[in-house]
């Protein structure tokens, strides 16, 4: 297929073919990571700015490595060390950086729609690296890539997304993607952490974790955003663990070929038991490796020649 997008803003806007195209390329880029010299000249002379207004380790390192492997030059800007602290607006910051003749902007921001906002106003290609509780498209793509390594056919797949779905942009991106593949998705969370927007999606809801985990091929556990507890969304951590944590006991009841996924960072012993995270069923570190390959594929595809003019 001929890729004609200039920005990657959400999974919602992508077609199934476009997702497949990214993944096919990503598998080829994974091979580059295994080479003695992990560097190809595809984006030589291009400049990428990683604008991270929210803390991040995995995503920022992953994007930075992807850019370096493609021979692009990259600069990282974080909110805490930039003029944002002095009151500069997002648009001013971005426009000023772009005036230094950059080609691509990777943005993480606490406001939903921040990436789209920039895409509509900048000349550069824009990649959404997480915008508020809206979407985190590159995370979902690396998750799809990881699942494809063990389960080729998404149509006959049973997926469980477990945990703090309300605040999770990853969950939204995953749901949009799985919907395009017509995958059976079940959500499991305390009612207070279950979003109201579910009417948009064709998903099942199950509040009993022991029932929910039984027949799934993929068990995707979300991070319990501990800061939420103070807001009274669940009574106590102990109670959450009792009702919604993937404990070792529960892990022993899952299907034999199920895989355990998590977008990181893990709160060991809260949403996920440490032994389960380190088990052979866990593909969590594979997700991280695939993240670099997926981001290389996206940077490469978005930066096509004439589409940028």
């Amino acid at each position, binding site marked *: 297929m*001929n*890729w*004609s997008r200039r920005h990657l803003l959400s999974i919602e806007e992508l077609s199934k073919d476009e997702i497949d*195209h990214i993944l*096919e*390329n990503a*598998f*080829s*880029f*994974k*091979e*580059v990571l295994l*080479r*003695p*010299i992990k*560097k*190809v*000249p*595809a*984006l030589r*002379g*291009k400049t990428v700015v990683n604008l991270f207004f929210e803390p991040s380790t995995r995503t920022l390192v992953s994007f930075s490595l992807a850019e370096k492997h*493609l021979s692009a030059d990259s600069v990282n800007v974080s909110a805490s060390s930039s003029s944002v602290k002095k009151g500069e607006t997002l648009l001013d910051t971005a426009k000023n950086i772009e005036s230094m003749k950059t080609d691509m902007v990777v943005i993480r921001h606490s406001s939903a729609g921040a990436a789209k906002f920039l895409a509509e106003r900048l000349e550069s290609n824009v990649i959404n690296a997480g915008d508020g509780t809206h979407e985190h498209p590159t995370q979902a793509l690396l998750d799809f890539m990881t699942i494809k390594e063990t389960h080729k056919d998404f149509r006959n797949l049973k997926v469980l997304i477990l945990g703090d779905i309300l605040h999770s942009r990853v969950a939204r991106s995953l749901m949009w993607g799985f919907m395009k593949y017509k995958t059976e998705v079940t959500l499991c969370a305390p009612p207070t952490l279950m979003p109201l927007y579910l009417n948009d999606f064709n998903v099942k809801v199950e509040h009993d974790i022991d029932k929910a985990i039984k027949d799934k091929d993929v068990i995707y556990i979300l991070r319990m955003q501990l800061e939420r507890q103070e807001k009274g969304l669940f009574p106590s951590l102990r109670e959450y663990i009792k009702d919604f944590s993937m404990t070792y006991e529960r892990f022993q009841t899952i299907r034999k070929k199920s895989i355990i996924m998590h977008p990181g960072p893990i709160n060991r012993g809260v949403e996920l038991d440490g032994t389960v995270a380190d088990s052979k069923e866990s593909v969590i570190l594979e997700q991280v490796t695939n993240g670099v390959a997926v981001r290389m*594929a996206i940077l*490469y*595809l978005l*930066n*096509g*020649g*004439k*589409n940028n003019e």
Partner: protein
Amino acid sequence: MAKDFRLMGEKEISSIINKMALEVLKSKENIENTAFIGIIKRGDIIAKRVAEIVEKRENLKIPIGKIDINLYRDDLSIIDYHPQVFSTDIGFDLNDKIIYLFDDVFFTGRTIRSALNEIMDFGRPKKIYLYVLINRVSAELPIKPDFSGSDLSIPKNRIVNVKLKEIDSEDEITLVKEDN
């Protein structure tokens, strides 16, 4: 409506493959230190076919790799769409090896330039030979094949289309009719 002009069929292609194998066997290079690399999508098939003949004659296994040169193209910032990338697969150490590089058509030499750069990122071969089915003798760079099945001097806008059984269901080389 003018038809595509058929340049070669299965017999002619197979004869070139045989000649390639003979040429490899004839060379004074140490065959045990030899490896083949094919450029995706059809050079890798040619490499495999030649290797089969050489392996049978010499009773040894030749390491075969394949490379996708798209990430090394010199026109990535000009072309409309970035082409799909396929996996390069060089599963052997190519330091100090004699490399035979295979492609279907040699045209401007730019693909070969990309391939050479990519190979060098994997190691430092002792020598690289270039074998192609067709040489269009219109190089834009100071590169030329060491072996070509046939030399073809045609205008730059004409297209030579190579089909190989493994992916195209038949062996055939055609000169595509002009578009107008």
